[in-house]
């Protein structure tokens, strides 16, 4: 028998959703400050309107649903899944008001891409977008990368077990510190320190390649936020090609790799456990897959003589492979060049890299390295079982922060999530093909959306069918939250309709 949700459930969900909405409204003040700095009047008005609407909704929700109760698992998951939809709908307001998006759906698409750190864009005339709106796009990457719910709660809530449920709901289940709020704050600390360092380095590189100092540092802050949070947004329409610099691209490769690493690994490194990076199953798997897929991509590009020089092969082939694998989506070629020039083998290498994704507990999407590593270990264990005598007891260990014995339930859970991801990639590809796009193009774009990468082969465009836009929005949302909280939300609605 399905039980219909109680009023107290809805009140609890509404209350925490309200808090997150208030948090979102307050973050809209940051672009206002930037707008004031650059004297951009209409963008300031866009953000004042959007912030006021968002705060009004948040305050009304918290007042109407006022409660002292903590969240249970179901409520926590629903708050998370709904908060990303609310963030999309309200975060799209300033974008739409700017007039640089053709429709509200386009603005919503971009907002979902921003918060899920995907990087697919529908903006028109990006080169004339205001500093305030550009900052909002990149700040959104930074907020979304940490997790919308947990960002809001780490500032507005003092120690709650409900926060842990939301932390898990946002696709993370590793705590760096015993208290999840402290974990979230530590993630902020890591990101903040890297932000200062990264902005400084990229800013200096920017000036050295001839950019004006103000532009160099604005761009560097934006590029860092979008690079470290594996989002792939950039302030100019050419993305990273705008800078025409090997040094700039090399720094970005380092930032992308840092962003795709597990925050737990950063934590270990910060506290002196540097050996962890060499021992950890995720970094080993990442190293192996980057190497293998780089080789496949390079062979593919070489066969067609796409880049007949090593430096070009590095700057185009390896750069995009790392960009796809880390889930960032930075580009130094035009979208159609993938299809027109790269050839099938190189594209397959890149699609695989995008699908595999980065490390768990990072800002990257995709299947993730821990799960791939577990598959390898399980395979090794099974082969050992076949080779060794039947009486032999075969155990398999892997190292992830500590030594862990491989169990069937870990393999099952990894397999389940992997299957759902693969299903999501294929679903988008089928819908893309339905609308007349070639299958490989559709699979490329679908994998990019569902694994929150943001590389595009040209399908993502303001003129694409609305159903396809909605499909990609769903894929970005589901891929970022790793499905569980979305399944709970669906279950909640079913219970509301069918429950007693």
């Amino acid at each position, binding site marked *: 028998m399905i039980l219909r949700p109680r009023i107290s459930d809805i009140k609890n969900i509404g209350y925490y959703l309200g808090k997150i909405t208030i948090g979102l409204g307050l973050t809209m003040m940051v672009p206002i400050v930037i707008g004031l700095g650059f004297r951009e009047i209409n963008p300031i008005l866009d953000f004042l309107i959007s912030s006021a609407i968002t705060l009004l909704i948040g305050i009304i929700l918290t007042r109407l649903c006022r409660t002292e109760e903590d969240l249970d698992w179901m409520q926590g998951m629903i708050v998370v899944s709904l908060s990303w939809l609310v963030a999309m709908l309200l975060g799209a307001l300033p974008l739409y008001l700017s007039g640089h998006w053709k429709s509200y759906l386009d603005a919503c698409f971009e907002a979902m891409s921003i918060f899920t750190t995907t990087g697919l864009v529908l903006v028109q005339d990006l*080169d004339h977008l205001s*500093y305030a709106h550009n900052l909002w796009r990149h700040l959104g990457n930074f907020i979304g990368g940490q997790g919308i719910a947990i960002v809001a709660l780490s500032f507005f809530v003092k120690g709650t077990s409900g926060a842990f449920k939301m932390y898990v709901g946002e696709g993370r289940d590793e705590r760096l510190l015993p208290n999840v709020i402290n974990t979230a704050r530590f993630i902020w600390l890591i990101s903040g320190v890297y932000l200062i360092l990264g902005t400084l380095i990229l800013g200096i590189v920017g000036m050295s390649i001839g950019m004006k100092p103000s532009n160099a540092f604005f761009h560097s802050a934006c590029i860092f936020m979008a690079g470290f949070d594996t989002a792939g947004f950039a302030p100019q329409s050419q993305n990273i090609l705008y800078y025409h610099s090997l040094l700039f691209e090399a720094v970005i490769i380092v930032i992308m790799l840092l962003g795709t690493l597990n925050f737990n690994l950063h934590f270990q490194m910060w506290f002196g456990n540097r050996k962890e990076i060499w021992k950890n199953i995720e970094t080993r798997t990442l190293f192996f897959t980057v190497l293998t897929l780089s080789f496949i991509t390079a062979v593919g590009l070489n066969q067609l003589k796409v880049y007949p020089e090593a430096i070009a092969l590095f700057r185009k082939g390896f750069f995009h492979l790392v960009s796809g694998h880390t889930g960032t989506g930075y580009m*130094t070629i035009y979208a159609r060049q993938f299809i027109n020039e790269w050839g099938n083998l190189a594209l397959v290498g890149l699609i695989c890299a995008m699908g595999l994704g980065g490390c768990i507990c990072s800002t990257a999407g995709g299947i993730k390295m821990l799960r791939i590593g577990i598959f390898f270990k399980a395979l090794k264990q099974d082969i050992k079982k076949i080779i060794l005598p039947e009486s032999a007891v075969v155990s398999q260990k892997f190292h992830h922060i500590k030594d862990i014995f491989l169990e069937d339930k870990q393999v099952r859970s990894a397999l389940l999530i992997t299957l759902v991801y693969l299903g999501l990639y294929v679903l988008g590809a089928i819908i893309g093909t339905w609308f007349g796009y070639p299958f490989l193009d559709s699979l490329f774009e679908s994998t990019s959306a569902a694994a929150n990468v943001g590389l595009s082969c040209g399908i993502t465009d303001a003129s694409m069918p609305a159903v396809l836009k909605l499909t990609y929005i769903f894929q970005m949302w589901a891929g970022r939250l790793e499905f569980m909280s979305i399944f709970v939300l669906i279950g909640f609605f079913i219970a509301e309709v069918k429950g007693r």
Partner: protein
Amino acid sequence: MMKKMILLVIGLWFLVTNCFAAPISSEELIQNAREYDGKTVVYKGEVIGDIMMRKEFVWINVNDGVNAIGIWSKKDLTRDILYTGGYKSRGDMVEVRGIFHRACLEHGGDLDIHIEELSKIDSGMVVTEKINFAKRNWAFILLGMLGLVLILSNILRASGASREV
């Protein structure tokens, strides 16, 4: 006779290089990059973003309304460029003639144009922002509502707390 021949050849050369050289769009160049690779093309658009000096050369990015393409030029050719496009400015409109590269060997595989000639066809300008009054009015109304809701919710909270006491 010889003079006439020379004049004819010069005339034809000008005709081919200038008059018949209609600008090619960025879409056309990107879509058919292999076809245009290594050929002289004419491309037209607005200079956007930064003018990035690299020793005696310079990178500019020129947007034709669909895509922006990197233009590699000698510094002195870009002397006339005064405005570059951004939120508060409309960049100079330029027409460039140069060699198109699908994957430039000199620049790490970038799709770019190495120019031989640049002409400014329209001057850019600083764009004066006009206040959108409808937005301004909505901002006032919504901020007023927000203030009102905050005051009301504080009154309600205070009355609730005193009732509890």
